[in-house]
Structures are given as structure tokens and as C-alpha cells.
């Protein structure tokens, strides 16, 4: 039995679909303890009791539409009009736009491909050093995962059964802190403005830019205002966003033709399907762990060595950084959260706060050598050796680590906004 499991793990590192590997391990484990294999499907069918799951496919669809439309260019254009005249303005623009865009589309590489391609030449032209620009764009590719309605945030809510409206609020201040530190560093590192770049802010241009993006600017307010204004729950917010984006991009801006719509639907539902089967398979493997009381025993084991909550969080961070650099964010969430959740709860960690810690770690994992996804995406997109990107992202990585420490050991940063919810 364990020999077959070993082969399965070997096939996993050789590139087998992750859902197949997890399902195989779950099937073998249940078979090993004599439980009927249909338990695997019983667990998968539990997903239809999860109301929050609805928001995943709908936000993915909305995000895919946004990234296939002219929205990135329009938002970038407007931000440059508004902030481009500042010293370091373009770097700030890059960080802000990437963060907003990642929040809506997820860090699926879209940010680096769609926005990075526009931003890098612009930064080089304005005299930013290449290494700095590459590092900034690579890091920014996963910036914004803490802002609503980011998909990993929703997935954490689904897996941990934490309220998604809470998670959305909890991510805002830590996300802003991260942005502020990166912005401060970027402004310090930016070249001085040349004369022709100064005094560019013209009211007429800004007005035109605002008019151009008029239909996209309300999006964050639809998502947040709808949820916190009591008009709809998070799942419905996703439906409204999807419908709104569809109408705006297809009928108002006409960036996407009706004939292209089925393609975009397929593309986004395939992305969702890929995540759903991993989630489904992990439901089964998690149930085996629960059946065998692994989380309880894990806690008892850890408790022998670690007594304080703060030491536990330190070890957790190191563990998650390693996991984050090896696994993609969705797999990491569905596999690790069910295991860690009961342990963290036993140490008295607030589960909403835990979610923010998880996401910050996994976000950093995107840029961590040797296998951080963003490094490879940027290497592919900008045709640079990965090793060069390792070096370029190091200072940014250091800043992200500082925010991780603050986020971990200063829970009010995550939880303060929640206190207004009553």
C-alpha cells in the first residue's frame, strides 16, 4: 500500500494533475482502512452545500472579461494622468494598478502579461533602472491578493468556513500597509523627473480620462457597497459584478464581441473547473485526515515543542513560505488550511486573522526562489533569465517580509475594521 502511495507521489513531482494525485492518495487511504470508496464522492458532493462557492466562478468570469478587454489600458492611462507627474509617479501607478487588477482577476499571471507588457517599456523610457523595474513588476504581479474580491481570499473562506465579508474587510488595512511600504521604497528609488515630464496634470485630460473609464470606476463600489450596504451577500455580489462587467465590456465599450463571449466563458469555466476538482479531491483527503484524527494528533505533537502562540505563528510562517514557493496558491490553500486550522484555533489564533497570514505568505511565495510562479512568468514574458529576476525581486521581497511580520504579530491591523461591523 505505502509502495503504491510512494509511486503516486513520484508521479506527482513528474507533473501528474494534482487533483489526480490527491484523489489517488485519498482512495488508497480509505481503501487501507476498509471504508467504502464512495466516501470520496460523498465528500465531493458536500461542495453543493457551500453557498460561497458561487462567487468563485462568477468573479473568475468577470476577471477574465476585464483582462481580455481594454480595461487595463484605460485604468493605466487614467492613473498615469492622475499620478504620473509625481516624482516616482509611474512606479506608484504600477503598484496601484497591479494591486487593483490582481484583486479582480487573481494572480493568474494576467497581471504580469497584460499590465507588465505595458508598464515595463514605460518605466524604462522614464529612466527607471531595468533591474528595479523588473523587480517591481514581478512583485506587483501578485500584489492585491488581500483586497476584495480576490479569489484566494474567497477560497480561504470556503475551505475554512470563515465569513467572506469579514475576510474582505480584514484584508484591506494589511493590503494598504503593504502598498504604502512598497510605494515609499519605489519613490525613494525613482529617478528624478525630467523637465518635459513636469506639470503634466491638465484638467481637460484628466476629465477625458475619467470619462473614458467612467463605467469601470464604479466596480469596487458595486462589490463593497453592495455587500456592506446590505443589498446582497457575497455570492450575489459576484453575480452582479459579472453581469455588470458583461454589459459594460460587450455593449458599452464593445471591447468584446458577442461572438467572442462563449470563448471567454469557456476559458473562465475551465480555470474554475481546474480549481474545483483540486478542491473536490482535497475534500476527500481532508475527510480521511479528520476520520483518523490527524489534526488533533498533530496539535498534540506540536504542543509538546511549542507552547506559545507567537512561536507557533513563527513556525507557521516559515512553513507557509516553503509551501507557497512550491505549490500554486489554490492547491496550497485547499491542502494546508484544513490541516492547520484546528491547530491554529487551539493556539487561540483568530481564523480571519489566520486567513490574512496565509494569504500574505502565499503571496510572497509567488516571488520566492527557486520556484515562485511570478519569477517564471516574468522570465517568460520579458525574456530574462530567472536568476536575474531572483536578484531583481530581492529588495521587494524584503519589504514584503517586513509586512508579513507586522501582519502576523499585530492582529488589530487585520481585525480593527471588523469591529465596526458590530
Amino acid at each position, binding site marked *: 500500500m505505502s509502495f503504491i502511495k510512494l509511486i503516486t507521489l513520484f508521479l506527482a513531482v513528474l507533473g501528474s494533475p494534482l487533483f489526480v494525485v490527491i484523489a489517488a492518495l485519498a482512495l488508497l487511504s480509505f481503501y487501507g482502512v476498509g471504508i467504502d470508496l464512495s466516501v470520496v464522492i*460523498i465528500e465531493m*458532493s458536500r461542495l453543493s*452545500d457551500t*453557498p460561497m462557492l458561487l462567487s468563485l466562478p462568477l468573479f473568475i468570469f468577470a476577471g477574465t472579461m476585464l483582462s481580455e478587454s481594454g480595461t487595463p489600458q484605460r485604468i493605466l492611462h487614467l492613473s498615469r494622468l492622475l499620478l504620473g507627474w509625481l516624482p516616482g509617479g509611474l512606479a506608484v501607478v504600477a503598484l496601484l494598478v497591479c494591486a487593483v487588477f490582481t484583486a479582480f482577476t487573481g494572480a493568474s499571471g494576467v497581471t504580469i502579461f497584460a499590465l507588465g507588457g505595458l508598464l515595463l517599456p514605460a518605466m524604462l523610457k522614464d529612466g527607471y533602472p531595468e533591474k528595479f523595474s523588473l523587480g517591481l513588476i514581478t512583485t506587483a504581479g501578485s500584489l492585491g491578493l488581500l483586497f476584495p474580491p480576490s479569489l484566494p481570499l474567497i477560497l480561504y473562506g470556503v475551505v475554512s468556513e470563515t465569513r467572506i465579508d*469579514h475576510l474582505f474587510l480584514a484584508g484591506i488595512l494589511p493590503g494598504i500597509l503593504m502598498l504604502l511600504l512598497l510605494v515609499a521604497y519605489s519613490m525613494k528609488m525613482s529617478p528624478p523627473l525630467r523637465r518635459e515630464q513636469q506639470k503634466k496634470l491638465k484638467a481637460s485630460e484628466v476629465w477625458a480620462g475619467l470619462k473614458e473609464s467612467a463605467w469601470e470606476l464604479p466596480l469596487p463600489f458595486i462589490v463593497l457597497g453592495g455587500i456592506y450596504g446590505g443589498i446582497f*451577500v457575497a455570492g450575489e455580489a459576484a453575480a452582479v459584478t459579472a453581469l455588470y462587467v458583461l454589459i459594460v465590456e460587450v455593449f458599452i465599450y464593445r471591447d468584446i464581441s458577442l461572438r467572442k463571449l462563449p470563448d471567454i466563458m469557456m476559458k473562465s469555466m475551465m480555470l474554475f473547473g481546474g480549481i474545483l476538482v483540486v478542491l473536490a479531491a482535497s475534500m476527500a483527503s481532508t475527510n480521511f485526515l479528520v476520520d483518523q484524527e490527524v489534526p488533533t494528533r498533530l496539535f498534540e505533537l506540536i504542543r509538546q515543542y511549542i507552547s506559545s502562540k507567537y512561536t507557533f505563528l513563527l513556525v507557521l510562517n516559515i512553513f507557509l513560505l516553503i509551501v507557497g514557493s512550491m505549490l500554486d496558491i489554490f492547491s496550497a490553500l485547499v491542502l494546508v488550511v484544513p490541516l492547520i486550522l484546528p491547530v491554529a484555533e487551539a493556539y487561540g489564533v483568530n481564523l480571519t486573522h489566520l486567513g490574512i497570514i496565509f494569504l500574505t505568505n502565499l503571496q510572497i511565495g509567488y516571488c520566492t526562489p527557486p520556484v515562485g510562479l511570478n519569477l517564471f512568468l516574468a522570465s517568460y514574458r520579458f525574456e530574462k533569465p530567472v536568476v536575474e529576476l531572483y536578484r531583481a525581486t530581492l529588495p521587494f521581497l524584503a519589504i514584503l517580509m517586513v509586512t508579513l511580520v507586522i501582519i502576523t504579530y499585530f492582529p488589530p491591523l487585520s481585525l480593527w475594521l471588523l469591529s465596526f461591523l*458590530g
Partner: protein
Amino acid sequence: RADTRPKYYFKIASLAPAGSVWAQRFDEFAEEVKTKTNGEVGFKVYPGGVMGDDPSVYRKMKIGQLQGGGFTMTGIAEIVPDFAVLGVPFLLRSYEEVDLVIQGVWPNFKKSFADNGLVLLGMSEVGFVYAMSTWPVSTVSDMKKTKCWVPQGDLVSPVYLSTLGVNATSLAIPDVLSSLQTGLIDTVFNSYYGSIVLQWFTQTRYVSDLPFAYSYGVFLLDAKSFSRLPADYAAIIESSALKYFAILLNDTRKSNADSLDVLKKNGVNMVNVPPESRKQLQEHGVKSVERVVGKVFSNDIYQAVVKRLDIFRNNHRENASKVSIDSAS
């Protein structure tokens, strides 16, 4: 690990959280059974819904991953519809009625569960649930203006509310508090104790002072596993279950009574429901029964309940009149 397991091993799942009264009493029950059977019968509890909701637990009992579970009425009524009968709004009005009716229909329930391969061992309760609202709801016309919540899977309450002319929103329990906060719903149903445990009372500052419906649950074992037990062990389990689930019932009623004080101390207001509105609400209960009987649960079980209730209420009336005659003479 398998070697250290007792000879007869029951894995039990429950939605009740670890450390709750339910889990505590169940541990005591399990301990007593273990001692009386010389350690040959053992229970392992999976609390807090880690094995899934009621239908999932039932499925897992059918394939042998689990051997028992603590179920809520709405969850298990999907499988054994007759069990839903006591949840009809305004059918039962006091704990006295509850105890007498359950005593009367216990054999009916026992048989319905047995037909589905389940052994009924004990009943537990949430208690009487009250309409709790963000604003004072006193009369029937107030009630019609509410944005009411109904539990997901509940088939009876939505029918009642719609005969009353109230539009209900069906939500899972975890979504209720946030929906109250955002104003998606403004009226929920819960026991005093439940509204504290789930923190709903922080939003619903007004409780309509009229028991709306009885909410309850059940402890079941898988008949196949149960039948493997020697007769004396089975008897031990049955008698211990009766004992500890009776204690649990007392615990629950006491916490509900205590919770009422806590609610009042926390500034929750009891809203008086005038007699004519009470009467109207109760009559609608009977009307809605006509729409669900034979569909949601059988007519047989309903008649069995009504019969017990009539006997009880007639006795009660006679007793009451006797008392008044006695005091008059």
C-alpha cells in the same frame, strides 16, 4: 491503533461543537456504557460538523464510515419525513405538551427510523424558538412587514409563513448573522440560548413573547452495527441513552431559562403579542398543516400527535376548572 479499539466501536458525528453541553453529556453517556460493558463498547465523537451536515452523516452511516450521529430535525426529516411533525409552528405550546406528545409518539418515531435502518436512542432539543427581530414585531400585520429567515432545508416553516403572507429568505445558519447585519433579513427564529451562542441577539434587540415552534434533534445509531451487539449490551446502551438524554433535556431547558435573564440584562426587549394576534397566528398554524400533511409528513403521524394533544389539553382544562371550583368552594 485498531488493536486498542473496543470490540464494538461506534463513530458518531454531530453538528454540536466540542465542549458544548451535548458533547459533555454524550461523553458521560459513553463513559457509563464503557464501564458497564467492561470496555467492550466504545464511542468516538466527531463534533462540530467536521463530518459534514446531517445528510452527509447519514450517507456515511450507510456506507459504514460512521455508525451513528446526532441529527437536527430539519436534517434528518429529509430521510425520515414523519419526524418533522413536531416542528409545525404553534402546534406545541409548552414543555409539558412536548414531553407528553413525545412519550406518545415515541413508538411511531422508533418505527419510522427503524424502517430506514436507524435506531432511535434519544431526543435532544434546541427548545422553543421565538421570533427575534431588529424592530418590535407585535401583531400579525407587523409580522407581514418583516424580512423573515427560514432555515435551509426546513419544509414546514416556509409554508406557514407564506399562508401568513410573509416572504421568507432561506439561508444556512452561518450566513444568518451577516445577513442580519446587512439588513438582508430582519427577523429570525431561535431559542433564547441559541441566540446567545450564535450571537444573533447582538442584532435582534426585540423578541416577540410567544413560542413560535418547537425545535429538536435526535441521536441515532446505525441498525446494522447495533444489531451486532449482544442483547445485554444493547439494553445497556438504550437505558444509558435514555438517562443521559433526559439529563441533557433538563440542561437545555435550564440554559434557555437562564439565557432569558442574560438577554434581558443585555437590553433585549420582550415584545408583547396581543391575544387576537396570538389567536390568528395559531390558526394559521392549523391552516398550513392542511397544506403540508400527506406531503411533508404523513397524516398518521399528525393524527397521533393531535390525539395526544387533545387528551392532554382536555385533562388540562378539566383540571383547571376543577381547581377553580375547588377554590370557589
